[in-house]
């Protein structure tokens, strides 16, 4: 066959994503050893995703990542949206993975309420993916965060499975040991908006998860836990009854009522909050009876509690009703509406927001789970070195984001003595997405070969400095229940393995360059 064209491999800039960048350098070097000409192209996230998402026929392979979020404790969002054929056209299956067998498995998984049966289906899905290698899974990074133990009682820090210690639970329970009662933490990204009806940047969610309550929150163990709901109960596989907690108050003093809850869910599908719509579209009806709210679903949904009840922010009807009514008459929707002072019912109240500098929240002492700290202050620090320096000097006391080398952090903690670090395997993961639409990536054998060519342990060591778990499954070991250990253990990697797969599939090396099997032509060379 023809010589395989130069393969473009996208990655983000080193300054933004050092580990990803380094992994890609290593991977490219391994692939070149197979006889491929690899061109690493560095571009900022927005450009990269523009190509990958909107020009689906136009790329070869790209570094990509899924981050851990509490709602993703249920594997449904990942296993369905990333690989199902319905999302291949314009949805998240941008790699164009089409496998009818896989489709059936995940369609069944969605509506299976029985956990044991569902677990089998999820395992099966992981196996199919391992065999097909539509993506090349790399690692589940370990999130490493740090805090000042002379300020915060280490016992009050909560490690959330798959997420790490930077989580809502920690912020609520952190207990000061001394004078300093403010949680001061850092973020490298700017806060984009604090809007309960808009899903914006990752940092934003740290803020609105504290300001707004939800009926259910995903607990530190990854399992849903009643929160603003006193309790919830499946009446049948399409009906769930939720009892609202008594005595809750909005930050402006008004009581939280079942009407507010109903309003919150209805607003999501009102057309004014398109981003939240997917989480509430499955609801057919919401009925109120005293403090009990009954949701009737259109279809059974295994993940409803995690992905809907634990996702929709509760918002005060008296504040938002006039706003929504006004927005109906305008071109904008609620996503671009920024309240002067966001009013929620959560454990922290909104105090102040200085553009690109800091956000200040104060403890809501009236909350049923009132925080121990007094204030929660988020500082925007784009320079990693500076963030670490600030932690050591006490300018911040909780390192909530650290994109640098974890070893450096550990070393700093050791030297300093006042710092404690906690590393947690993430439920998110890093991978290289293959464009399954384009040859040679349409050949599972080729994908498998590329994937096996790279020793994940080298990536873990060289790029992540040991702070990651090698991965071969989209379901992280952090989600212990759903994770299929076998797919990872059965994965064999190495240059020789890859060469053998390629040879078996008929690829040939001519000169130093890899050629297609048989008489396959290169159709995409420029």
């Amino acid at each position, binding site marked *: 066959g023809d010589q395989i064209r130069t393969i473009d491999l996208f990655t983000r800039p*080193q300054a933004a994503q*050092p580990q990803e960048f380094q992994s890609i350098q290593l991977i490219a070097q391994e692939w070149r050893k197979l006889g491929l000409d690899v061109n*690493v192209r560095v571009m900022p996230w927005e450009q990269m995703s523009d190509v990958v998402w909107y020009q689906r026929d136009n790329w070869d392979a790209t570094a990509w990542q899924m981050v851990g979020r509490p709602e993703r404790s249920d594997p449904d969002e990942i296993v369905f949206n990333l690989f199902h054929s319905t999302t291949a056209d314009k949805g998240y299956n941008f790699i164009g993975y089409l496998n009818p067998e896989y489709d059936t498995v995940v369609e069944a998984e969605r509506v299976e309420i029985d956990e044991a049966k569902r677990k089998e289906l999820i395992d099966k899905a992981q196996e199919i993916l391992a065999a097909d290698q539509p993506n090349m899974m790399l690692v589940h990074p370990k999130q490493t965060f740090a805090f000042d133990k002379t300020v915060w009682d280490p016992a009050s820090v909560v490690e959330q499975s798959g997420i790490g210690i930077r989580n809502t639970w920690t912020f609520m329970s952190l207990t000061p040991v001394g004078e300093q009662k403010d949680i001061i933490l850092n973020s490298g990204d700017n806060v984009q908006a604090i809007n309960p009806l808009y899903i914006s940047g990752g940092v934003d969610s740290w803020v609105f998860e504290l300001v707004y309550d939800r009926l259910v929150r995903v607990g530190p163990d990854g399992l849903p836990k009643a929160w603003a709901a006193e309790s919830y109960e499946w009446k049948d596989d399409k009906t769930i009854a939720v009892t609202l907690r008594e005595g809750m108050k909005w930050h402006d003093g008004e009581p939280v009522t079942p009407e507010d809850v109903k309003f919150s869910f209805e607003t999501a599908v009102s057309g004014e909050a398109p981003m939240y719509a997917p989480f509430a579209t499955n609801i057919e009806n919401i009925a109120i009876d005293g403090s009990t709210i009954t949701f009737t679903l259109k279809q059974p949904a295994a993940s409803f509690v995690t992905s809907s009840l634990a996702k929709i922010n509760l918002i005060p009807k008296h504040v938002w009703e006039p706003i929504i009514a006004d927005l109906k008459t305008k071109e904008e929707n609620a996503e671009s509406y920024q309240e002067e002072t966001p009013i929620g019912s959560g454990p922290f109240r909104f105090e102040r927001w200085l553009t690109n500098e800091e956000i200040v929240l104060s403890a809501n002492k009236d909350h049923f789970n009132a925080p121990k700290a007094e204030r929660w202050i988020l500082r925007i620090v784009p320079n*990693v070195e500076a963030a670490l320096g600030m932690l050591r000097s006490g300018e911040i006391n909780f390192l909530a984001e650290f994109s640098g080398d974890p070893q450096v952090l550990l070393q*700093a903690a050791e030297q300093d003595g006042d710092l404690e670090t906690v590393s947690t395997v993430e439920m998110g993961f890093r991978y290289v997405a293959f464009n399954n639409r384009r040859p040679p990536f349409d050949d599972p054998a080729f994908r498998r070969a590329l994937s096996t060519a790279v020793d994940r342990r080298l990536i873990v060591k060289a790029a992540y400095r040991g702070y990651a778990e090698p991965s071969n499954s989209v379901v992280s070991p952090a989600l212990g229940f759903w994770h299929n250990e076998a797919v990872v253990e059965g994965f064999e990697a190495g240059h020789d393995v890859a060469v053998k797969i390629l040879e078996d599939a008929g690829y040939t090396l001519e000169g130093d360059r890899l050629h297609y099997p048989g008489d396959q032509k290169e159709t995409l060379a420029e």
Partner: protein
Amino acid sequence: MLDTTLPRPGFVARFFRSLRLPLNDPFAVAGLTIYAIFILTAIFADAIAPYDPTEILYTPDYDLAADLRPGEDGFILGTTSLGRDIFSQIVYGTRSALLIGLTAAFMVALIGSIVGLVSGYFGGWVDALLMRLADVAFGIPFLPFVIVLAAFLEPSIWNVVIAMALVLWRDTGRVIRSQVLTLRSRSYVDAARVSGSSDFKIILRHIAPNILPLSFLYGSIAIGWAILTEASISFLGFGDPQSISWGYMLQDAFASQALAKQAYYWFVPPGVCIILVVSAGFFITRGYENLLFPKLGR
């Protein structure tokens, strides 16, 4: 052309003479020497550098050769956190630094000189148009422009050059224009006109040689600008990781937390190289200033 009966010095020699290199200024000589050393390094980079600057290296025991201190395992200046040889990077970095610096300087000097010559000599609407264009170029903040350009085209060291060519001709252009204005009013230009020389000939013969040193001066300022800008652009993440430059090395160092790791060997060598080359340019520039505007100097 002028007179063929007499032997004339060769073109190259004449060119260098007309540049009027400030060889009697010790600073300028130091600058020229630094340039010479770096130019030689760039030319013979392949022979000097022991490794490919982008190659990820392994230690004899098949471990990644990352974070090695200078001298360890035979790496003269150590390795980066990705296991690349710093010395080789410095050597190859010379190449891109000079490539960027010299081409940018050439573009800036060339475009600026042409604009200045045409504008200053012909005056009238040509002048008005070109000077308004210069005003526009003055209105465009340079570094942001390069960033946008880097985002617009792909990250590449040439972005800096293109941006400089598009924007920075303005300074050279204006200065040369005013110089041309004074030259134009010199009697010998009138004399040339009276003796029947065409405009083109006058520009070429009587005016251009006089602004050559000035173009060269602005060119050497541009070298520094280009290298510094490339470094800043790399630092902000818009650089080209394929071609190793000193700016890239600096940003690599900071992305790898050189300060926290106290890995001075990551950022001192490229930093020193940048400072050397850019200062060398400034030294030469100053020598020139003393030469061109002797009343400035002492």
